[in-house]
């Protein structure tokens, strides 16, 4: 189920070889997660108003997950645009694939706000958004290693989960959509 080191390096190289001399914030945590890790207990309210847990939302699918908040003007509009474009490119080619945007501002980001945020980029059938419960968010940020001190308070990484709802990889910041599709495809092939 794990992605190989070569796969990880290809993904990392997509972000790292292009010449930035300033270290991306995600570099300390990007890479394959070995062995894959089960997520913490997190209650989710989905953008359609239904409730579930993170483990249930991830189960039986291969998932690309990102952290956002709807009032963010800096990195989040780019993150949303990349997910929307990648989801459009993927279409139905991987039946079990999904895109999941989780808010780090659960007090403000209710289902209506999350739905409106996705609508800015064009909603896609396999793209969902959710807000976690506050204690669950704290556990999730620790689990993903995604805390930052900047005003946007989260990295622009994408976190990949396998069909058993296990975290298998953390990307660099702003991975290109072709890399998202490649990693999801690899996870899907591995069952």
């Amino acid at each position, binding site marked *: 189920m794990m992605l190989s080191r070569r796969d990880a390096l290809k993904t990392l190289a997509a*972000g790292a070889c292009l*010449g930035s001399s300033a270290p991306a914030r995600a570099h300390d945590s990007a890479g394959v997660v070995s062995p894959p890790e089960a997520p913490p207990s997190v209650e989710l309210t989905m953008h359609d108003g239904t409730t579930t847990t993170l483990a249930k939302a991830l189960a039986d699918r291969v998932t690309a997950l990102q952290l956002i908040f709807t009032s963010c003007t800096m990195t989040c*509009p*780019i993150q949303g645009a990349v997910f929307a474009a990648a989801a459009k490119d993927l279409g139905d080619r991987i039946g079990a694939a999904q895109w999941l945007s989780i808010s780090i501002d659960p007090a403000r980001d209710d289902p209506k706000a999350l739905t409106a945020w996705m609508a*800015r980029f064009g909603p896609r059938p396999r793209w969902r958004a959710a807000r976690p419960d506050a204690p669950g968010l704290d556990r999730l940020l620790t689990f993903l290693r995604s805390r930052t001190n900047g005003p946007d308070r989260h990295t622009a990484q994408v976190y990949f989960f396998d069909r058993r709802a296990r975290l298998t990889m953390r990307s660099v910041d702003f991975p290109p*959509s072709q890399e998202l599709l490649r990693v999801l495809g690899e996870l899907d092939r591995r069952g």
Partner: protein
Amino acid sequence: MASKTHRARAGAGLASVAALSLLLLSGAAARPGPAARGQKLFLGATPIEAKMVGHAQALPPDAVRCTNCHQREAEPPREGIEAFAPKLGPLALTRPVARRGGPPSRYDARSFCRLLRDGVDPAHVMIPQTMPRYAASDADCEALWAYLVTP
């Protein structure tokens, strides 16, 4: 499908209205020539195509507005913005400043344009990949430069 299209258009429309509101509030009409055009570019009322480094697809205009992350030196602080990306204006751009560990350097119109397009600063240091790279025309560069260095 029609409903989704409608929602997407409504979102784009709201973004345009927001950009125009910013424009009106900041008095664009009073600025002459290139600076007025530069203000529209800065606020997103006039879009510039941009991509993230390594990405094949251009991003939507409202995701890459300069004002999403930057503000001009003359403007009152906006929450969070200053800590994320530098304020821009005559002080930051035209005085010798050591940036990103490089030697002191200052921008001119040409090096500013290089930064927008290629992400390389006047000391030949690459800026973070967090900033999109813009397909700015010579006229776009000139207009933005005029807007930003005009006190």
